[in-house]
């Protein structure tokens, strides 16, 4: 397959995300693998498309159902691309090490939509993301982070009642004397930059796009 075809695959993947089309995303990913295109580049292209949608969301031109569906399309493509990326990682040709992120919504909180977005975005931007879902206790975050030698722990809280659990998590890591082993990021509808600073988090993301930027800085 020539360069032109590879470019065509990339634009197909980009469009599949922009049009939140799962089938196109999956077949685009399959074509990318078959044609020997750069799979990391393919993931990045889809990530850029997600960022474009995210910017549209801020301007109220794109709405959450579209983002959720685009995210679903991206996950379909990742099912095809992820094994290829793991092969590259195993052979040492994936470029620099992919940092591992443990992400979840804190204990007592069942909101997942925003956290899912951050997880998806991080996946497209060079991170290996392990999503622990919702209602995640501090010890569950730590157990997984230890097991996988994670770089980042990202904790989301969507309610004023569960926001203090982000602080509990950091206090817990301090008490276990492992705080310095991980970068801790907090986010979610009710968190603020000041709050993140107050509780001693390493980073705060107001939305999925900013969250990824901060994660990149923390692992640079």
């Amino acid at each position, binding site marked *: 397959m020539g360069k032109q075809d590879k470019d065509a695959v990339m634009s197909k993947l980009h469009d599949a995300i922009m049009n939140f089309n799962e089938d196109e995303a999956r077949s685009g990913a399959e074509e990318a693998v078959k044609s020997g295109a750069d799979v990391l580049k393919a993931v990045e292209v889809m990530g850029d498309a997600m960022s474009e949608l995210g910017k549209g969301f801020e301007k*109220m031109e794109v*709405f*959450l*159902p*579209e983002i*959720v*569906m685009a995210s*679903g399309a991206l996950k379909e493509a990742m099912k095809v691309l992820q094994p290829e990326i793991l092969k590259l990682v195993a052979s040492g040709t994936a470029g620099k090490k992919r940092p591992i992120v443990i992400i979840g919504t804190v204990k*007592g*909180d*069942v909101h*997942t*939509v925003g956290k*899912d977005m951050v997880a998806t975005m991080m996946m497209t931007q060079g991170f290996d993301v392990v999503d622990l879902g919702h209602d995640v206790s501090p010890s569950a975050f730590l157990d997984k982070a230890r097991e996988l030698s994670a770089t980042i722990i990202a904790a989301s809280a969507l*309610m*004023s*009642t*569960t*926001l*203090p659990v982000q602080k509990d998590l950091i206090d817990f890591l301090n008490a276990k004397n492992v705080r310095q082993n991980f970068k801790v990021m907090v986010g979610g509808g*009710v968190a*603020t930059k*000041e*709050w993140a600073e107050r509780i001693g988090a390493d980073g705060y993301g107001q939305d999925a796009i900013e969250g990824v930027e901060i994660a990149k800085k923390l692992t640079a």
Partner: protein
Amino acid sequence: MRNGKREIFLKAIRGEATERPSVACVNQTGTYEQMAALGIKWPDSNFDADLMAGLAIGAHTILDLDAVRVPFCQTIEEEALGCGVLIGDEKNLPSIATHPYDIDMTPHFPEDYLTRGRIPVLCKALKKVKEEVGDEVAVIGGVIGPFTIVGELIGINNFMVATLKHPKMLHEFLRVATKAATQLAQALVQAGADVICIEDMLASMDMISPKIYKELAWPWEEELTSRIAPAPVILHICGRVNPIIKPMIATGAAALSFEPKTDVAAVKLAIQEEGKKIGVIGGIDTMKDLFFGNPEIARASALKAAEDGYDVIAPGCSIPPGATTETIKAMLLQETETC
């Protein structure tokens, strides 16, 4: 305690002039400090009518607001329709854990709906609140909007996708949810509620587009509102609501409640353009002013809210339970403080 609370609030929500600024919260009012002062805690007060009433009355006796409201949580209708609920604890409200339906299933409205789950607890609590303080303060009964109920019946992610891909398949769900909300609202009015507040959290522009709002949320809010009449309705939607303000007005609600991130000047203008008299409720940021804030910050926002023309100065959404009494009471402006 301030005087004339009930009358002032009931005038203010209709957009009528009042002798002093009305201050209230039309969403949940429970705080940890009130729980400590009253010796009534969560989770018990989300499951027992006397305790629910007891803590709700704190909004009058401790916070000195113009209205009291039950319930605190947003799970009662969903539970009665089959959602699994985590009971929460002393810090956290009940939350919804399981969603009984897939989009391709047919929802079922239980004929014994009003006797299921905690619906009798809520109705009894409201009746008790009315008996104890109903002459002094306005009593608000809270129900969940049909659109939001459906989101919980099938799970938010599937619901979001369905609004785009299979909007027609949501119709029967919305019908059932509207019936549930209507029956509960009517029961609460019968139990003595002066006002019904419909909280339709998922009908927010943080979740859906104006087009989806108009097609899938608005018609059912309108139906629900008209079935609650002649009792006045407060329609509360979280997040940014500027793009849907005209349909919100067209629901027939007496008053609209929203967060400060919505441009209130534009809302007032829209109401004027429609030639209606509708109360505007809000102006206080629940997190910045009440949770992270302090009395000075909350007071400054209350003054600004009065200046911006809010008819009821209120938190834009539920009071954060961790907010202090002192900070919340800083919203209570006196008549001399506004023009």
